[in-house]
Each structure stands twice: as structure tokens, then as C-alpha cells.
């Protein structure tokens, strides 16, 4: 069983000052799932991803990727940050941003060559942005910027993808395009973990879900645990959501 665990988190606790943002998180994510992390604002969803990726240093706890510490398994993990976390007026093109996805495998100092450029172009094509490769990134729409971020992660050619609200501020067409890419990743055996806000679409988009509100409320298949009981425990009020079946 442990061999096909993509991510295993033990006792993870994170605090910015005195108040814990995440408390004693134990989480096992099996390989090949498309999982949503849901919870109210301030529940620590983004923090959880950042702590897993080592951007934030946890107070305690451990993170294992395929049974080994994250630091040794970096190349297996890709990250899509929130779109608002960078300055889109930065002087660079869509292609250049996607090319950055290959920097990790290159390591220090080495420059991207033909192989990396090909990888970046393929990633751009996958998200339908090849025609915009030379576009300055500030001249892309919000949805296009989100696709560029997604392409950058695809260029990393990883096994596990962490995404922080990839559907935020995108139109219905882009949302549809992105979810199709995520589902294609799952079909290819990849593991995709998404911080998600729209509860209505959880049953349609995802097969696994984790309820989070500082503590982990529940984790499992959408079919089994996406119900009023868990929603109420997580959000504190009785949530009326249409649940499949």
C-alpha cells in the first residue's frame, strides 16, 4: 500500500506567529487521484501546499513524497502558485515563463537548450497557448496568464502537481479547458492536488477531496465523504450542496 502513496504527511503543524495555521495534519494521498482541498478562508489551504513544498518552514511534522523526504524528490513535484502572487508586468514573454519550468532539472548555471525549449513549446501547446508564445505576459488576459502558469508546471514534467486556486478569476471556457488538462494528467497516472473554492463543482471535477479548517476534517473519495456532515464540520454552518447520488 505504501508504495503507491504519492504524498504522506505526518503531524504537520505550521504557525506564523503564535496562532497555529495548521494543526497536526496527517494526510495520505494515493497516487493517481485528482484531489480538491476545500475549506473556508484562512483554513490554511494555501499554507498546506506551501508547507509541503518547503516554501514555509513548518514547526513540526514530516512530508514524504513516494516514501522519501521531499527534498530528495523535488523533481517529481510541480507547483502552480496563485496567479496574483507575481507581477505580470515583468518584462518577459509567455514562452520565457514556461521555460522557467525546466530550470529545476537544469540546476545551477546551466542554460536551457533545445530539449528544454521543446519541452516548453509542448507545454504551451498542451494548454492551447502556442499562438501567444511571444506575447508579453502583461498583454495576456487573466485566463491566459493562468494557462501560462499551468504550462510552466507541465514543463516540469513531474508526477505530482500542486495547484493553488487555478480557477480563480478565469472565465467558463478557460475553467473547462483547465479541468480537461487536469483530468488528462490523472488519466496519465499523475497525482493532482488543487486548492479549490467552488463547492458546487467538486463532485463534477474531482474524485478525491480533503476538508481542511486548521485541522484536517476528513479526506477520502468524493463519493464517500463529500456530504453535508463534513461540509458543516468544515464551514461551521449547514451547507446545502447538491451531492451526487
Amino acid at each position, binding site marked *: 500500500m505504501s508504495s503507491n502513496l504519492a504524498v504522506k504527511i505526518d503531524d504537520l503543524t505550521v504557525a506564523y506567529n503564535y496562532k497555529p495555521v495548521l494543526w497536526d495534519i496527517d494526510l495520505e494521498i494515493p497516487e493517481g487521484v485528482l484531489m480538491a482541498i476545500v475549506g473556508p478562508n484562512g483554513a490554511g489551504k494555501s499554507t498546506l501546499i506551501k508547507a509541503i513544498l518547503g516554501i514555509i518552514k513548518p514547526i513540526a511534522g514530516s512530508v514524504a513524497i513516494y516514501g522519501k523526504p521531499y527534498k530528495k524528490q523535488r523533481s517529481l513535484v510541480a507547483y502552480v502558485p496563485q496567479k496574483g502572487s507575481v507581477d505580470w508586468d515583468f*518584462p518577459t514573454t509567455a514562452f520565457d515563463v514556461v521555460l522557467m519550468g525546466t530550470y529545476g532539472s537544469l540546476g545551477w548555471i546551466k*542554460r536551457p537548450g533545445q530539449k528544454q525549449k521543446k519541452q516548453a513549446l509542448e507545454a504551451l501547446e498542451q494548454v492551447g497557448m502556442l499562438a501567444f508564445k511571444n506575447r508579453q505576459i502583461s498583454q495576456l488576459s487573466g485566463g491566459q496568464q493562468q494557462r501560462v502558469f499551468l504550462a510552466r508546471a507541465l514543463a516540469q514534467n513531474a508526477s505530482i502537481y500542486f495547484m493553488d486556486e487555478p480557477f480563480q478569476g478565469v472565465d467558463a471556457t478557460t475553467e473547462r479547458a483547465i479541468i480537461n488538462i487536469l483530468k488528462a494528467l490523472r488519466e496519465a497516472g499523475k497525482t493532482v492536488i488543487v486548492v479549490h473554492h467552488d463547492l458546487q463543482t467538486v463532485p463534477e471535477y474531482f474524485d478525491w477531496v480533503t476538508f481542511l479548517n486548521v485541522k484536517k476534517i476528513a479526506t477520502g473519495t468524493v463519493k464517500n465523504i463529500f456530504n453535508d456532515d463534513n461540509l458543516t464540520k468544515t464551514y461551521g454552518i449547514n451547507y446545502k450542496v447538491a451531492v451526487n447520488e
Partner: protein
Amino acid sequence: MTEYFSMLFTDYTLRTISLGTAVLGIICGMLGSFAVLRKQSLLGDAISHAALPGIAIAFLITGTKDSTILLLGALVSGLVGTFWIRGITSKTHLKSDTALGLVLSLFFGFGILLLTFIQKQPNANQAGLDKYLFGQAATLLESDVWLMSIVTGISLIVLLVFWKEFKIMLFDAEYTKTLGFNTNFIDILITFFIVVAIVLGLQTVGVVLMSAMLLAPAAAARQWTNSLGIMIFLAAVFGAFSGVTGTAISASYDNLSTGPVIVLVASSVVLISFIFSPTRGLLFREIRFLQNRKDLEQDKTLAFMYNIVFNHENITHPHNIRILNNFQGFTKKTLQQLEDKGLVTITGQEWSLTKKGFDTAQNLYTNQSMVNE
């Protein structure tokens, strides 16, 4: 001015100063681009002020006015100031502007205190330290220019070697961390070279105006390009241009202090760039805006006319101008422009669409409905 250029070949001092200010412009432009893109524009101001006590302390300890030793002191206190700023922002709830302001005034106040203390000393050697306040390019020696050139060369090599790391770090620091790069190291490297560039400029431009030297070329360069490499190159060119031109102007007029003139030239480059850049400049943006507005007004007026004419059997049937009066966007000028294009004919108080006008309007409609689909 022509006199300046002939003197450039004969006058050794002037040549040294021109070379010095040019090299200074290059390194400031290059590293200033980083400060601007990291939104740390004010960091330069704080660091340059923080360097002042270092100069005074170095003088008090060694008793020498050798610029290399004094600048070493400036480098140390500039770095201390920088790490205080970083410490304050990461350890307390204070925002970075507060931290910058605190460090700037604390270090600058302490520096001024030391300078006045030095001036009261019964020692003839102390005169001239105040040149670091507003800079004095005339005191640049050949050895100073060599020092600047070597440091510029080193920072250029570092820039080229770590180009990929600098670029990704400037754009998205957190993501860079997830790829396994030591972002602290890259950050310290960038900050260190910014401090070095500032310290190098103190003798020429001075503590007070140094940040302009760092920011102006970079801000100007950003207006002309959307490529990071070209931006840094242009910033270096603008910096060198400001240095040389500023020196030329101040050499051509007696008693004009070089540092402030260089800064004024650099600011003029910024102003010109803000106005005249083809893509981001205010002028062309305004022209494009007015042009678009005019085109739209004409299109809408034509479309309105088309609607009126549409139900008539004879499309060129004349109508009274007054029925257009309530239509927003319609003016005598738009009507005139439409007539000039041959889309409308006006006879007295009546207008009628020409065949060409009718077809153009019809095309507008099909294009519009295509956009909507």
C-alpha cells in the same frame, strides 16, 4: 560642448572623470534594474544614507582619506543597514517602508553626528569628508576609475553566470524555491551587488542623490522594452549617457556640481521615456486613445444612419440632420469626416448615405455580429 569633446582628448583629469561617471552609470543602470523589478526602489536610498557613518568611522580609525578605505567602511555600514532592514521586516510586523525609513534616518543622523564631531577635531586633515554628502566628481582619481571598472566587470560576469537564476528569482521567488534553488543565496548576491554599486557612486554623486542614479536609468529603460536582457542593457546605456553628458555640461559651465547635473540628465531621460516610448509612453497612448475614440464615433454614427436608412427602398434617400442630434457621439465633425471619406453626402440640412457608406455600415454589422458570437 564641442570644447568639452576636444578637451576630452587633451585634458587628463576630465578624461578620468568622464570615464568614471560612464562606468558608474553602467553599473548603476544594470543593478538598478534589479532594484526596480524587485520593487525595492527605496532600498537604494536607505542603503546610500546608511553608508555615511561607515565613511566617518573608517576615517576615525585609520585617519586616512584614501577613497578605497573610506568606501570599504561605507560598504560595511551599508551592508549592516541592509541586514537591519531585512531583519526588521522579517522579525516584526513593521512594513518595509517603515523599516527603510527607520534605518535611513538612524544611520544618516549618526553619520552627520560623526561628521560634525570630526570637523571639531584639531586636525587639518579632516576637511573634504563632506564631499560624500553631495558627491564631487572632480576628486575622482585614476585608481578610483580602475576600482569601479573592476567591480563593474565582476558584477557583469556574475550577472551572466547567474542570469537564469536572477531572472526566475526576480519574477517568482517562491516558485524558484520549489525548484530547489537556494533563494537566500541569490537574494543576498543581488542585494550585495546593489550595495556595492551604491557605495561606488558615493564619491561622485553623493549619499543624498545616489538612489536617483540607481533608479532613473532602469525606470527609463523599462519604458522601451519588454525583454529583461534589453532592459538591463538599455539601463546601462542610459546610465553611461547620463554620466558622460552630466560631466560634459558641468565641465562646460564653471562651478556646476557634477553629481546633481548627472542626476538631472538621468531624470530627463526618464521624462522623455515616459512621454515618448512607443508602447508605454503617455503621448502615443493618448494619441491611440483619441484615434480609437474617433474611429468608434464614426462607426457608431454610420451604424445609426444605416438603421434609419435600412427601411427605405432607396438607400441614398436624404434625411434631415436634426434627427441625428440626439445621438451621443454624433458631432458636425464626425459628419464632416464621414463626408470626407465619401461615405455620406450632405446637401444643405440633409444627409444621405452613399452606396459606399451603406456597404461599409453593412460590413460593420456583420463584423460586429461575428465578434458577439
